[in-house]
């Protein structure tokens, strides 16, 4: 699935900011985003893709960062499409090799190694920047 929507103008509306540094924050985040997506008519499949991605990003914040991080959840409007953007920010230690991190089966902690590459496939738009000062991931799921 590829979308050219990002080239078009869309308005964005920040809904809430989720602080995630402990495991139970992940469940809470899931409920909040699920609620928002259902309210705006997301179908079951899009919803599962969005929540799974949120889950993967949150696990990364809990297990791979110094102090956890935040996920900013925004609603996007573009013509008749509604999207949800997850902006995930942490303050380190950063990803040594983004190429490795986006490769299926690569894991530094014995996981399945499908988190980030999976998220990239599940979401319609995916952007990642990382340095030793922190990582910023922005991804969007459109409900069309």
């Amino acid at each position, binding site marked *: 699935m590829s979308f050219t929507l990002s080239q078009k103008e869309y308005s964005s509306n920040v809904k809430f900011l989720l602080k995630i540094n402990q495991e139970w924050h992940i*469940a809470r985040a899931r409920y909040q985003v699920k609620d928002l997506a259902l309210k705006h008519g997301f179908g079951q*499949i899009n919803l599962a893709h969005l929540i*799974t991605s949120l889950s993967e990003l949150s696990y990364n914040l809990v297990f791979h960062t110094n102090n956890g991080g935040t996920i900013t959840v925004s609603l996007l409007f573009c013509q008749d499409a509604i999207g949800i953007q997850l902006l995930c920010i942490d303050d380190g230690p950063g990803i040594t090799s983004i190429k490795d991190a986006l490769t299926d089966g690569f894991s530094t902690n014995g996981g399945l190694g499908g988190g980030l590459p999976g998220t990239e496939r599940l979401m319609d738009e995916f952007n990642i920047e990382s340095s030793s000062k922190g990582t910023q991931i922005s991804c969007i799921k459109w409900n069309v």
Partner: protein
Amino acid sequence: MNIIPILQLQSNLIASIQTELTDEQALAFQSELLEKNSALNTKGIIIDVSMLDVIDSYMAKVLTDLAKMIKLQGSKAVLSGVQPAVASTLVDMGMKLNSIETFLSLDSAFLYLTKEQSGKTKK
């Protein structure tokens, strides 16, 4: 503490996972299931996930690990009730649940296990 009830039905154990598990809960579930399996000498284990609307890579790892451990004990673990949206997400993510057989419903999983067990000579 394990929060997932584990029930015995003939020579099978049935566990229905109702919510996402934390690390600690998953470990507790794992150890109780393995202990019960060995204490009750069960042949099959059905893990029902029909209440889960999300299976992320963490949950997938918990399930595949569990199936491997149960296989080492000489029993067989199967998965039942994978939701349509979950199936789509797992494939799109590239998650492989190779080590665990799956069934549409608890009913078909149970039928399969009992059939398989009646065909085998008792150990």
